């Protein structure tokens, strides 16, 4: 009897979870299947993976697209730019989100599997150097000063602000930044320190940008860097430092990122599209076209900087070259 009763409990639990998972239910396969029967009834599924910075952008585009095309399922993963390329070159995804251009070894991996791709710039981002709102001496930093501060040779040596610039007070430096797996880290070190991955190591690294926000907003003498959206959402506690690239101090903003005057820290964000899948999957073709044409709307929804007219023209040309 005892065991029978347990059997009943288990059966109920099992039935419950089955019922839960059975309610609702659209079809969804991760493969690159797609059938076209005119524009009216697109169906199929599209898989994308890659940078967690670009992820929200593709998610926004997917969401807007899917409200008009309910038969299409688009999924987004955030394995990081490198992880995304790995899957893309295995043919597991049709779109790869990237916050940096594809590397040579990744190209080779794609070639080996016969995956042809097209790179398209879909938005701009301004890597923003932030300090505490109450910080009074850090208004503008030259790229040289940033290099003094973040260069690999600064490790253990540059510890007070007056070492960066004699005009700054002799306060202790506290640094926060993204971890070494991040595309943001790659881009910043490449532009500022002249070599990708070369950075001082005695800073507080975090893969979660919100940790950097908390660190900098809690310490008057702290400095950190990350994508513009995290600054925008935390303007009440953070202050963006202007960057001087020899042409005067420029503050990061949508405008300066779009026209490129916020140099060298404004960066393009990419998607990579599988050419073969683009040709065979009507849903993918429709989605990419939608993504580019509605770039302004997509960028706004994801809180990124939309393409300039010139960039958009390039993107449209790239799209046309896909066929």
């Amino acid at each position: 009897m005892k065991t029978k009763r347990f059997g009943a409990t288990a059966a109920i639990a099992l039935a419950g979870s089955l019922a839960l998972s059975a309610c609702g239910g659209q079809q969804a396969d991760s493969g690159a299947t797609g059938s076209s029967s005119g524009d009216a009834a697109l169906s199929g599924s599209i898989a994308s993976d890659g940078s967690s910075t670009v992820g929200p952008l593709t998610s926004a585009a997917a969401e807007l697209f899917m409200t008009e095309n309910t038969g299409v399922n688009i999924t987004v993963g955030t394995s990081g730019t490198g992880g995304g390329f790995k899957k893309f070159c295995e043919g597991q995804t049709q779109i790869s989100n990237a916050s940096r251009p594809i590397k040579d070894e990744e190209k080779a991996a794609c070639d080996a599997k016969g995956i042809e791709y097209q790179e398209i710039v879909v938005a701009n981002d301004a890597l923003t150097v932030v300090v505490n709102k109450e910080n009074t001496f850090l208004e503008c930093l030259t790229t040289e000063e940033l290099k003094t501060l973040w260069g690999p040779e600064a490790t253990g040596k540059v510890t007070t602000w007056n070492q960066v610039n004699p005009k700054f007070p002799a306060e202790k430096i506290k640094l926060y930044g993204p971890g070494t797996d991040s595309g943001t880290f790659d881009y910043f070190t490449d532009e500022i320190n002249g070599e990708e991955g070369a950075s001082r190591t005695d800073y507080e690294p975090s893969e979660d940008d919100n940790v950097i926000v908390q660190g900098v907003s809690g310490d008057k003498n702290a400095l950190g860097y990350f994508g513009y959206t995290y600054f925008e959402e935390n303007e009440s506690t953070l202050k963006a430092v202007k960057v001087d690239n020899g042409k005067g101090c420029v503050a990061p903003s949508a405008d300066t990122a779009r026209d490129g005057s916020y140099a060298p820290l404004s960066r393009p964000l990419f998607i990579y599209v599988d050419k073969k899948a683009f040709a065979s999957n009507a849903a993918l073709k429709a989605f990419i076209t939608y993504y580019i044409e509605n770039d302004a709307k997509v960028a706004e929804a994801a809180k990124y900087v939309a393409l300039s007219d010139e960039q958009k023209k390039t993107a449209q040309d790239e799209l046309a070259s896909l066929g």
Partner: protein
Amino acid sequence: MTALTADRVGPPKPLATAAHGEKGLRSMAFLIALWLCLAFGILVLAVLLVTTFLDGRERMDSGLFTNYTSQIAPETAGARAAILGTAWVILTTALMAIPIGVAAASYLEEFASRTSRFARFVELNVQNLAAVPAIIYGMLAAAAAVAVGIPRNTVIAGGIALALLILPVVIVATREALRAVPQEIRQASLALGASPMQTLSRQTLPAAVPGIATGTILALSRAMGEAAPLLLLGGLVFVKFDPNGFLSGFTTMPIQIFDWAARSQVEFQQLAASASILLLVLVIVLNGLAIVIRNKYSAAR
């Protein structure tokens, strides 16, 4: 601090600590240190629970259950796909881990010779598997999925990863439960002419079900909170459909929470907190169920 009073007499064997009448300075200091350790642990947990609850309370509504995640409108985003994804993956995990785990434990406990090299080899492996970090199982499942040729971020691949993760726990719990079944039951069954297999399936296993169920439910509730192995499989963070089969793409609650918590918008961070509360409640309910089952059957026995 009432436990400090000297006249509280402990169960049969009083230990030489302050709680059991020892009043030496050193044992008092040791007791206080123990209390401080306990208080610290509980305090951290309490702070975590309270802050999570405060962050997430505004989003604890029906939208959390019925809406999909949304990039455009974070204020109405929900965890529907993650909740259903968790249900699917945990079900798949249970379907794989329980039969294999119970079978392996039955073999080791009821059939294998204690001295056989093979049995000792298996036993050693089970013990080692229990100590392997969760993320390694993710790598293993990813490799298995690629070898078989199915996409990595599917329900079945996630189920394999979590089933491997909890298999040692299921095996150990089942062995303990089988060991607790009185030897007389087996002897009586065999004496009445039942085969060893019949003895196992009709007498020993049914008698061990409460123990097996308790261990398995605890293991499943651990699997429910795992993010690392599934992230390694390429867990999706933006899914706007319900999973519909073993080859369907999916997201689970820990993956979704992990993604939301790192977003810049405060709405997503609140959502991460409310989904955490939901996950916590689910795990507590499962653990409660395990306790109920255990108490019910140990009382009946």
